[in-house]
């Protein structure tokens, strides 16, 4: 009998091997492993895990079906709540969500809910099982701006309620951060993201790429000229921040967005693709979030020695624990409690190094985290040829600045109620466009809530 206190281990590519390729790191559960892990679920009467899931998947019910080997039924249960289970099972920070609430986690290890969700979604895809739409069309047209996690979720939910939904995407691929941000080794594009977008398409949602709302057409024009009666804005937070330190315009300094877009969306890492990418010898990644981990692990796979420079300590790293662990295993070096103060530039205008100052933690700031304080005189220089700024992102002002009556707060985020209603009637919003950069699953939760609110709006109209 297996030890019920510890989870069934999952197989992963060997760190030394995977550090040189872009194939998925985590290989997922086999059927036997999934069934064995499902058996660890206590099927609580009052399941805390469900409350930890932003889209409230009926977790014990789907796990029960996995235990009974009814994988198709398990998929149906998940699909009632989530449009992107193969994505969420891979990228959700489960330790602070569903798995963080699992009773098993008190004395032992929490049930591997994310890995089980991923198993079910992958099994369904491999067996050609797709979510179904049994609604009858109600004739109302809704526009969804952005094909990231919030937009895909809102679109899927609205289609299942009978709405005629069109998703408008500015880039040439659907998926938002799922295609340009999160790398292939965490989230395979063709296998997983494309398949999940196809599933949403299968629900009757129409997609139009290469349309930039605010330039190609405005929200007001969509309503007045193209007959859309409601709009959901899920345009995300894609505007990169820079440090505004000397040398930042030098060749070799990139935003993480640029570096990852070149690699993930434009497939610069693949032979035969036209987009170039800087394959540095020694790379400094500034920041400590998931995006920083993605950029660092990407640079490593392109052949560089990689240093993550973060101004707080390990305990404050905002990235998922699993990603930090993976990055360390692969050989990413963490320079903690340090911060760049200047980028050093050679005669040709290219990066030759970084001047870095050491920090210590002081009093907690407004966010409750201990504020990093510079240690005077502790500056040192590190040689490098590439610097990737991963300091966070904020919403792009293009939509708010071209839509009359749509208000934003000081940070440029759209102002919206908890249901996603913006300051403009019939226009709803959710995800990073409202909250600023957050997580995939929170964006999906917001898309879900807004879809329900849009349905209410039509009923009361």
């Amino acid at each position: 009998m297996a030890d019920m206190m510890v989870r069934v281990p999952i197989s992963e590519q060997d760190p030394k091997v995977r550090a040189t390729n872009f194939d998925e790191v985590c290989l997922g559960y086999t059927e036997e492993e999934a069934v064995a892990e499902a058996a660890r679920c206590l099927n609580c009467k009052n399941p805390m895990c469900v409350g930890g899931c932003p889209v409230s998947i009926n977790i014990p019910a789907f796990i029960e079906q996995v235990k009974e080997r009814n994988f198709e039924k398990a998929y149906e249960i998940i699909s009632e709540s989530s449009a992107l289970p193969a994505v969420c099972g891979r990228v959700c920070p489960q330790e602070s969500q569903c798995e963080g609430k699992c009773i098993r986690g008190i004395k032992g290890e929490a049930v591997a809910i994310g890995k089980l969700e991923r198993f079910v979604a992958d099994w369904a895809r491999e067996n050609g099982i797709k979510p179904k739409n049994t609604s009858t069309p109600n004739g109302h047209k809704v526009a969804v701006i952005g094909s990231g996690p919030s937009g895909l979720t809102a679109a899927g939910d609205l289609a299942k309620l009978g709405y005629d939904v069109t998703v408008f995407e500015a880039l040439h691929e659907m998926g938002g951060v799922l295609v340009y941000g999160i790398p292939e080794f965490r989230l395979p594009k063709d296998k997983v993201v494309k398949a999940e977008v196809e599933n949403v398409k299968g629900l009757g949602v129409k997609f139009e790429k290469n349309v930039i709302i605010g330039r190609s057409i405005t929200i007001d024009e969509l309503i007045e000229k193209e007959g859309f009666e409601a709009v959901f804005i899920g345009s995300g937070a894609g505007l990169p921040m820079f440090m505004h330190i000397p040398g930042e315009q030098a060749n070799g300094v990139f935003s993480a967005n640029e570096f990852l877009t070149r690699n993930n969306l434009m497939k610069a890492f693949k032979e035969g693709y036209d987009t170039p990418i800087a394959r540095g010898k020694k790379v400094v990644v500034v920041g400590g979030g998931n995006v920083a981990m993605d950029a660092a692990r990407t640079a490593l796979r392109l052949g560089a020695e990689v240093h993550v420079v973060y101004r707080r300590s390990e305990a404050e790293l905002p990235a998922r624990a699993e990603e930090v662990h993976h990055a360390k295993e692969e050989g990413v070096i963490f320079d903690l409690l340090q911060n760049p103060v200047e980028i050093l530039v050679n005669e040709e205008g290219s990066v030759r190094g970084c001047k870095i100052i050491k920090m210590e933690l002081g009093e907690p700031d407004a966010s409750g985290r201990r504020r990093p304080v510079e240690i005077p005189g502790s500056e040192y220089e590190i040689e490098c040829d590439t610097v990737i700024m991963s300091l966070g992102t904020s919403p792009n002002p293009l939509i708010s600045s071209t839509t009359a009556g749509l208000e934003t707060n000081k940070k440029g985020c759209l102002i919206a109620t908890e249901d996603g209603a913006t300051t403009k009637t019939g226009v709803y919003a959710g995800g990073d466009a409202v909250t600023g950069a957050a997580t995939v699953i929170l964006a999906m939760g917001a898309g879900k809530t807004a879809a329900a609110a849009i349905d209410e709006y039509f009923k009361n109209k």
Partner: protein
Amino acid sequence: MYPILKKEKLSDKIFLMVVKAPRVAAGCLPGQFIIVKIDEEGERIPLTICDYDRNEGTVTIVFQTVGASTERMAALNAGDAFDDFVGPLGQPSELCIEENLEETKKKNIVFIAGGVGTAPVYPQVKWLKEHGINTTVIIGARSKDILFYEEEMRQVATELYLATDDGSYGFHGNGCQQLQALWDEGKRFDHCVAIGPMIMMKFVCLLTKELGIPTVVSMNPIMVDGTGMCGACRLVVGDEVKFACVDGPEFDGHLVDFDQAMARSKQYKTEEGRALLKLQEGDTHHGGCGNCGGDE
């Protein structure tokens, strides 16, 4: 898909294409640009809009072959199609916005077009003519055989001057020198628009600063998405960092840091060279360039 309806070779390395892209044609204005991507493997290439027909739903682009991607584009013909064609992007030229018309009418405007920059100057001059505004246009080129759009420009410009570096056609000298010559003859301008290679725009700005003519330039830095999400196209204008794709591409030329912009535009020079060699030499390319290690 975005079908190519017409392709024309304007000069040795300069090509014109008319592309069916109804959403872009419906809302675009002079000064804005598009991003085109040939196929799945292609990169995203920014090009300024050179003409448009709202009724036909078409947009005209003009490009010069400078690397592997533009060579590959030049190999396409009418009947082929682009996978992706997105826009309009960027801000319209301030001269070509209806609300600014009264202000624009007061200006005595000179355009200086350099090389392939002639094409994006055209829709601005055309728009101004349609709105009853006179313009002086100087087209500068290295020599006669790479000069194009002469007839088209003559139709819309009030006065047209042609300049070639080698004197093979029109004024002997570059666009800057032609402007200086006109100034010396007593012609006066109070607004200048310069579009062309960065080095040319830099020298126009040095001259117009001296002459006291406010000057607008259209910047062409490296871009990826063209929507403001990456900052690849960032430039220093005055004391501020601007993203050319959303804040521009047109800026006050007297505030642009051209030296930095030119250094940044060379960022991928080696990769571009390798890609071009590989395309030209195909299977025969085995690292003769000494850089790329052949087919590794």
